């Protein structure tokens, strides 16, 4: 890309800093000026979104690998580099973050309670998530990851809602789960760092950690991957560490649910691919059978529970746990097709769940209830909202022409050879997904017109932004999947992942079962 004097591209730092800059401006605005605050927040995220769209299309797919890189030595004695860069795996995640970040500002457009603090924290949250995806250094990756935890906690306890569990409980549960998970992650990370530092200069760079694979013995890889699986697994709500997720989403304000379910969770899957498979392939091979079984538990168990939920947010919360099962199966299959599918699925699910949560947010804002039996026939009064809700629902059950269909299809294509039983069980899961999704749509949107909702106004103006942006992405990438898959495939093939996976599959490791 553009060769700057220092040999790096400043595009990614700009994308990262735009929301942060907006945050600083907001801090100095008077707190009564809620309109200005929202506009500044929207501008900040809009800049990031446009720039990341540019990066998405300017990425040289033929060349592949990390692009738009920038490396600044940061803590020389530890070997930490402030290194940014994106490849075919992280770039979709970056774009996803910005799409959702931008929409989440508009999903909170009617927020009046302590708006200044809300938008400042939301922007920090978006910056933190973005940072994890563009970091090429494990230390920086972790730094950004932990930045997001505290704003989420504060946002849940102040702007959250108390339903089945109190918002304080939900916030604390979410925080503690993620932090305990990250404690194990940290131990794994330090162990990996020390193992890699045995030869050459100490480093945290992903590519160098991966290049020094011969330094990691098989037992070490098993232990280290196990630690990371625990950490990233809690984050991606892998069964049985998933229970924070529905409670957390139900307690959180709409924007936080969107970002959390949409992108934050994906850090878990991204980490497992970037750190697990690339750096510790033997460990991945060893744990893959376990992941596959737990993933099926995710898909089926969470789908069953979603069937029985009465609160809209709980349905979507469990559905997102269920969908993460597909990502985990794909990772466990350990072949390029499936991993590509996993990345696409993370993107697809992110867009879909963000749209779902934003629509639920509007329903709750207008009707003051999320209880499914209390709702009904909303499509009569709010056709536009119903459209968004149905698009999200259709994407959720994997209707062809949505990106979700193509991702699921790719995952099963990749999985069926490696893990036939699990793949078939997983496909069975789609049936349950269809059942609960259609049930929710039917009970909330359709049915006889109810006069108590006649006073409700349909979503309009700024409120339409999430629907338009996210809905457009679902169909655009669904009908022209090459927009996304071209990039993802470069990420999987050109980064040497295919080679890694091939050697792993030949290695006679056995595994647990």
């Amino acid at each position, binding site marked *: 890309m553009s060769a700057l004097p220092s040999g790096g591209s400043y595009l990614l730092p700009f994308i990262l800093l735009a929301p942060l800059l907006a945050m600083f401006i907001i801090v100095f605005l008077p707190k009564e000026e809620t309109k200005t605050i929202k506009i500044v927040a929207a501008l900040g995220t809009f800049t990031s979104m446009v720039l990341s769209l540019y990066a998405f299309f300017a990425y040289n797919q033929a060349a592949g690998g990390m692009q738009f890189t920038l490396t600044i030595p*940061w*803590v*020389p*004695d*530890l070997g930490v580099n402030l290194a940014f860069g994106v490849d075919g795996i992280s770039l979709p995640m970056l774009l996803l973050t910005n799409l959702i970040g931008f929409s989440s500002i508009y999903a909170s457009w009617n927020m009046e309670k302590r708006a200044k*603090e809300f938008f400042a924290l939301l922007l920090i949250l978006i910056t933190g998530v973005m940072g994890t995806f563009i970091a090429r250094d494990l230390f920086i990756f*972790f*730094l*950004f990851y*932990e*930045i997001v*935890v*505290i704003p989420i*906690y*504060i946002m849940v*306890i*102040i702007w959250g809602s108390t339903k089945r569990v109190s918002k*304080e409980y939900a916030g*604390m549960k979410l*925080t*503690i789960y993620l*932090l*305990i998970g*990250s*404690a*194990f992650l*940290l*131990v794994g990370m*330090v*162990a990996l*760092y*020390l193992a890699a530092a045995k030869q050459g200069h100490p480093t945290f760079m992903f590519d160098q950690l991966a290049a020094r694979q011969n330094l990691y013995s098989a037992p070490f890889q098993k232990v280290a991957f196990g630690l990371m699986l625990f950490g990233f697994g809690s984050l991606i709500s892998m069964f049985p560490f998933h229970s924070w997720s529905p409670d957390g989403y139900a307690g959180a304000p709409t924007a936080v649910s969107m970002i959390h379910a949409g992108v934050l969770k994906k850090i878990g899957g991204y980490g497992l691919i970037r750190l697990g498979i690339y750096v510790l392939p033997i460990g991945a091979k060893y744990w893959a059978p376990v992941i596959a079984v737990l993933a099926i538990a995710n898909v089926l168990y969470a789908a069953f529970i979603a069937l029985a939920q009465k609160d809209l947010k709980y349905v979507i919360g469990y559905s997102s746990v269920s969908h993460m099962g597909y990502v985990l199966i794909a990772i466990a299959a350990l072949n390029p097709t499936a991993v590509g599918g996993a990345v696409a699925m993370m993107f697809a699910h992110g867009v879909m769940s963000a749209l779902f949560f934003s629509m639920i947010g509007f329903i709750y804002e207008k009707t003051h209830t999320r209880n499914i039996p209390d709702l009904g026939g909303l499509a009569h009064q709010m056709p536009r909202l119903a459209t968004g809700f149905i698009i999200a629902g259709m994407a959720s059950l994997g209707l062809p022409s949505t990106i979700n269909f193509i991702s699921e299809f790719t995952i099963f294509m990749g999985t069926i050879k490696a893990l036939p039983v699990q793949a078939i069980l997983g496909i069975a899961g789609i049936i349950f997904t269809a059942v609960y999704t259609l049930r929710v749509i039917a009970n909330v949107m359709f049915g006889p017109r109810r006069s108590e909702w006649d006073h409700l106004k349909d979503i309009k103006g700024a409120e339409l932004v999430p629907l338009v942006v996210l809905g457009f992405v679902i169909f655009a990438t669904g009908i022209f999947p090459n927009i996304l898959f071209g990039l993802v495939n470069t990420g999987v093939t050109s980064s040497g992942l295919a080679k890694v996976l091939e050697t792993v599959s030949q290695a006679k490791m056995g595994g647990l079962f």
Partner: protein
Amino acid sequence: MVDFNIFAVLTPEVALAAMALILLAIGLLIPPGARKGMMPLTAFSLIGILSYTLYDFYFGTKTSFMNGLYWHDQFALYFKVLFLAAALLVVLSSGGYIQKLPKYRGEFYSLILTATLGMMLMAGAGELITLYVGLELMTISFYILVAYLSEDARSSEAGIKYLVLGATSSAILLYGISLIYGLTGSTQLSEIASGLGATLTPTSFLATVFILAGLGFKISLVPFHLWAPDIYEGAPTPVTAFLAIASKAAAFAALIRVYLITMNSQSFSATGQTLLMVLAALTMIIGNLVAIPQKNIKRMLSYSSIAQAGYLMVGIIAESIPGVKGVLFYAMIYVFANMGAFAVATHISEKQGSDEIQDFAGLARRSPLAAVVMTASLLSLAGIPPLAGFVGKFYLFSAVMGQGYTAIAYIGFVMSMVSVYYYLSVVKVMFLGEGEGLPDIPVHGAVKFTMLFTMIITIAIGIYPTPLAQMAIAAAQSLVQ
């Protein structure tokens, strides 16, 4: 023979002693109504000494004199910078608080300075008696400071408790020193190391454990920690801050020098290592778990500081340059993080007359700056990036894992995540509660400066730790030479 000007080397100590006496005299001469100037006077003299020490750290002569009685190396200077910074921040944040006291205002600052002087002696001591003198100078100043609120029964009670327990621990320390002297015929650390040899006898074992217990009391290492919560709660808040931060760091300075120079050469190394490891683990676990149910901010911070001592011990266990570097680095950021929290606590205590956590309700609305500073400080103590605490813990735990002790690092990481629970519960009260009926308490002047300064340092070091890390490495290497 000394081939350098001994007074040039000792300038900070001499200046500090002189200043302590001058303040005492001023306190006597000036009528009680006109003593407002004492705080700025102390602060400016501390700034002067601090900047000289910083200069000395980088460019001054490094030496030891009187046959290694007193070391003037970068290790000692690093800790001197730390003590002076802590003293300065305590003085700056306590202006209003002390102004409210009915009498004895002048002595307060004078005593802070003598305590600081004692700490500086401890950091430089290369010999056990000097170490003991420094320790007693510090501790006796603290006996008075803890009981400073003479009308407050709790403060007096805390003072008496500290006196009794502190005297006992000093006795144990002295007994350990006398055993060492009996065994080796010397109180010089380097001579002790060669005198003790490599074989472990019951007596040398007893002596080392006694010394560890004496210093462990100051560090509030479990099981010598039981005094801390009561005394921290009863003492005036600025004194609690100074006690929790600087006196602990001073004991660590002494412990590192004594442990790494003398005890290391012995085969005690193996058993002592296990002992220290168990104690460090217990300290982290008990400190963090008992902090959870606390309702009083000072008690909570005192248990948290017990836990922090556990983290610091981990670095000593590593017995390596990275380990010592970790301790030094963490001790310095611990000053700023804890000082931020205590500055807010002092402010609340001064304006609302209460130390209960529930009285922090709605602080985010009533005093946004204080709430933000408190949050940043607590999260840094918890080790959440991008605040300084994270990098500090990373140095400590990676050092100990580098020596192959993975289990203790596990405990450390998990316990620091547990600690987030009680730190966040304070954050929750500040941000969630409306705080109805409680007054608006904006911060001004020196207190505002202290708060902002600690927060900026905490964030800046967290994001770019290199300068402090290099200072810490230099100091750690100077110790090994």
